[in-house]
């Protein structure tokens, strides 16, 4: 067994990135992700790569664009307001069909909000965020171990799909320390014949997101959409915990999923069969997995540290076949397991008491 080492989530992002082959990091400070650039500044030069603190978020994402065009595995990180600033660049990178990794350690919003943990950037993360018909592929770690492995893998995914890959965490996952076993990671780097590495002996490669002729741009869009379709088939990932015999299936990711993991045991301790479906990829979303549970009559309680964003994807997956309720806390408040257990109990009671169920989502703040 490998040695267990204690590590903060943010540090695991850095170590995972370097193991995943990242050799160019461009950042700008913002809490609660500051350990990422801090740790990068120490470790990246040792790995023979570039660490650069840019003059702004806009500059950082543009540097990522440049490094990606040159074929380097590259990354930036920020927290919610900083990620908003980077959206223009992310759209350009998607339009230029370039791979890169972006880590967002979400904090309370909107606006400057606060530095506590939130999950209110789900829409921004999974719907594209910037302008145009693109998405970011989104991975959501729920442990320090996954901060490492999913970030390392994000570089393979970004390269495979030639698309930005977002690692979406929150202040709790980023700031907490857990013991992890460092895996022996081997990056899978595909050939990159499109890079601008000097055109000596070959025709020049052009990296651009400007296509004046509509049919040309439509062709690019079709190519990008075909990749998303492939991702939906091959990349989608979710973890099921005790859903087999569950009456109520909790759906949560990241920090909320950790809280719900406790809720499953607490509810079962009180005789309620609860389970947890944890999306690991948020885009592509595990629609099929949720649909399969809905087909079997499972009822859903979606828990988020937001006023209800992922719940929309769950409803799209369930398509009215079963009941979907929602429980959320916002502004940086992490829900306590006991609060959620009450929601699960209310749901279990509603099903055993009568055949009439409340099909309206419940929002509690």
């Amino acid at each position, binding site marked *: 067994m490998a040695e267990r080492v*204690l590590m903060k989530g943010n540090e695991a992002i850095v170590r995972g990135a370097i193991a995943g082959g990242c050799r160019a990091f461009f950042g700008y400070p913002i*809490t609660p992700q500051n350990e990422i650039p801090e740790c990068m500044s120490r470790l990246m030069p040792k790995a023979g790569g570039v660490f650069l603190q840019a003059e702004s978020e806009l500059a950082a994402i543009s540097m990522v664009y440049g490094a990606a065009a040159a074929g380097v595995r590259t990354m930036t990180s920020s927290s919610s307001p900083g990620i908003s600033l980077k959206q223009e660049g992310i759209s350009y990178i998607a339009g230029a069909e370039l791979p890169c990794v972006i880590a967002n350690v979400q904090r309370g919003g909107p606006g400057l909000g606060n530095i506590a943990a939130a999950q209110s950037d789900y829409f921004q993360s999974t719907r594209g965020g910037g302008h145009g018909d693109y998405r970011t592929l989104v991975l959501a770690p729920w442990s320090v171990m996954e901060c490492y492995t999913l970030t390392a893998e994000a570089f393979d995914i970004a390269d495979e799909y030639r698309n930005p890959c977002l690692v979406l965490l929150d202040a709790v996952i980023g700031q*907490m*320390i857990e*013991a992890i076993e460092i895996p022996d990671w081997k990056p899978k780097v595909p050939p990159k014949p499109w890079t601008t590495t000097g055109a000596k002996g070959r025709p020049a490669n052009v990296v651009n997101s400007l296509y004046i002729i509509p049919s040309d741009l439509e062709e690019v869009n079709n190519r990008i959409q075909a990749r998303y379709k492939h991702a939906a088939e091959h990349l989608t990932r979710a973890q099921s915990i005790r859903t087999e015999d569950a009456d109520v299936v909790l759906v949560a990711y990241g920090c909320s999923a*950790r809280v719900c993991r*406790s*809720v499953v*045991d607490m509810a079962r301790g009180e005789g309620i069969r609860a389970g947890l479906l944890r999306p690991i990829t948020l885009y592509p979303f595990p629609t099929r997995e949720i649909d399969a549970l809905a087909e079997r009559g499972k009822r859903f309680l979606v828990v988020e540290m937001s006023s209800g964003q992922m719940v929309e994807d769950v409803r799209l997956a369930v398509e009215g076949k079963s009941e979907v309720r929602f429980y959320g806390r916002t502004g940086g408040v992490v829900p306590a*397991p006991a609060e959620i257990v009450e929601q699960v109990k209310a749901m279990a009671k509603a099903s055993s008491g009568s055949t009439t169920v409340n099909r309206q989502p419940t929002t509690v703040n």
Partner: protein
Amino acid sequence: MHQEVVMAGAGGDGIMMIGQLLAHAAVLEGKNIVWFPSYGPESRGGPADCTVILSTDEIGSPIASTPDVLIALNQMQLDKHAPTVRREGLILLNCSLAVPPKDRDDCRVISIPASEIAEKAGAVKATNMVMLGCYAAVAKPVTLESIIKALPEVLPAHRHNLLPVNELALQRGAEMGVG
């Protein structure tokens, strides 16, 4: 075994450090741990607390909403966190800087003059270690030996001249817990 402990003091008290020390000791004993900090933008003096969850099982929620144990270094933090401790939990307070809560007779409350004990041991700044030593002796989340063994990992190398005083403070605290 599953124990959730909140440690609370002021920025500069070494709250994060004793949390990490406990975490390292727990890893030495093969336990699972989660450490999670909470503090404001101030680097000194503002409220600072951290949560450590130790378990022999998989750890779900990294946040302790009703902790088993509270270690409070000052009055403000005691007042803030004492109401959250679970019934029949443990409240350990530094009575050099705080008076015991009046409304928590459903908990085991232990008051020790940690600042004075630390001062006598050679450094008032080791108050945090006195508290941790006492907690280890009372609640036995890990052995004192594991904590002492983990100390060089947590204390930065340029502070290793302070290992003996920290070790002594841990032992003095533990003696208070045993007594």
